[in-house]
């Protein structure tokens, strides 16, 4: 199972095995990682699962849809490596991925 490292805003790290096909958001929610709210449950409707993706993996991620791009435009503290974690499906290629959570999702 691919391993994903979640790093909280305060630096606390969580290494989690996330089943292939799940999203990075689901990996966080199902493992009680703080900092990812995901109010809409992954429908790309709420922008409360914002994460910063490790630069080394940016190219391995599926490209942003228009919807994700726009939702992110409204996230707090947007960075070039910002993504919505509900839009990143976990694949074997993403084994070792590190994502950081922002200070706040709202």
């Amino acid at each position, binding site marked *: 199972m691919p391993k994903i490292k979640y790093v909280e805003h305060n630096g606390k790290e969580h290494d989690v095995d996330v089943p292939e096909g*799940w999203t990075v958001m*689901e990996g966080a*929610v*199902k*493992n*009680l990682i703080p900092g990812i709210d995901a*109010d*809409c*449950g992954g*429908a*790309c*409707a*709420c*922008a409360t699962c914002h994460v910063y993706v490790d630069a080394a993996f940016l190219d391995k991620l599926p490209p942003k849809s*228009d*919807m994700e791009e*726009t*939702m992110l*435009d*409204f996230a707090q503290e947007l960075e070039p490596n910002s993504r919505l974690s509900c839009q990143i499906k976990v694949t074997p290629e993403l084994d070792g991925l590190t994502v950081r959570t922002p200070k706040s999702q709202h």
Partner: protein
Amino acid sequence: MEERIVIIGAGQAGAQAVATLRAEGFAGAITMVGDEAYAPYQRPPLSKTYLMGTMDRDRLFLKPDAFYTEAKCELMLGATAASIDRTAKTVALSDGRALGYDKLLIATGTRVRKIKVPGAELAGIHYLRSIADVDELRPAFKTVKNLVIVGAGYIGLEVAAVARKYDLNVTVLEAMDRVMARSASKPVSEFYERVHREAGVVFHLNTGVEGFEGSDKLTGVRAGGKTFSADIALVGIGVIPNCEIAEAAGLKCGDGVYVDKTCTTEDPAIFAAGDCTRHHGRNGDLIRLESVQNAIDQAKHAALAMVGKPTPYNEVPWFWSDQYDLKLQIAGLAKPGDQIVLRGDPGLRKFAVFHLRDGAVVAVEAVNAAPEYLIGRKLIADGATVAPERLADLTVPMKNIV
């Protein structure tokens, strides 16, 4: 003695209340009572990916089991709360047990409205509200040919979209003159009706169901003087709030449990959140919302009130619906008489309908149009006034609209 909070209802609002209570430092006991066999789970995917079979049941759960363990929340599942004794501060369960509480949260949600016509008890007539409902419906989709859907609301249309992917013949019967009549504006209704027709769905509007036919199982649906051949039927004609338990306890109810802005009922020890509540909306109208957003936000406010930090609930309501490749996102609440402004071309499957009242934006319905939705939501929250010509002008980016 340790303070005890009891939550009736194990849904989106109940789960959120547990999370917020613990995040706010509530150190007492929490017990959650739910009448389904499952811990709180997401309902929106039920009529979409879960019915399609592309989402496993495991993925529906809002929280892992460890959440309830860590939060020291006792889950009583498959248990029904029968009555509340406000003097003794106890909740009686239908199996005879009683739970004492210091504070009580009513988060009982809704149940489906059953259709009352001859034949309504025949096998093959389905409703969709729970995991169990979909677990019965999905296998049927793989073996039958003709599906009749009663009601062209969100549930009916989302199921229609999935059923077409299963290659079923789908007929939708709707008593009103357009689809999603209760929740969407006319341009949005017309657009969705067209998309569904293009996908092969057959609509009969202004057609009320008169009865179901069949001897032991369903064979047809009688409506508008005709009989529509049906192997199965899906009835989606709305929901009824589960507020009888509150009403029997003498709390003010009327299509929902009345709560104030802090999600507190008339009884200062009893709170309510989610689909089962009736509350004053942002403009003062008395409303009952059926949505994930309202469940989450009211639960947060109820939990805050329970720990002695009452704060008024004023969030802009928001909703979404997934049908085919279309994402409908709605913010705010429209009313008949609002000025309607169309932005974009429905023919391009990307447009938004803004609703203005006295010049201010009060609602937006956006189809595959996230900027319109997100900025619209902000305009609504701000009570912003925008010239209709400007809203309709695609050469003005939403970011620069004000």
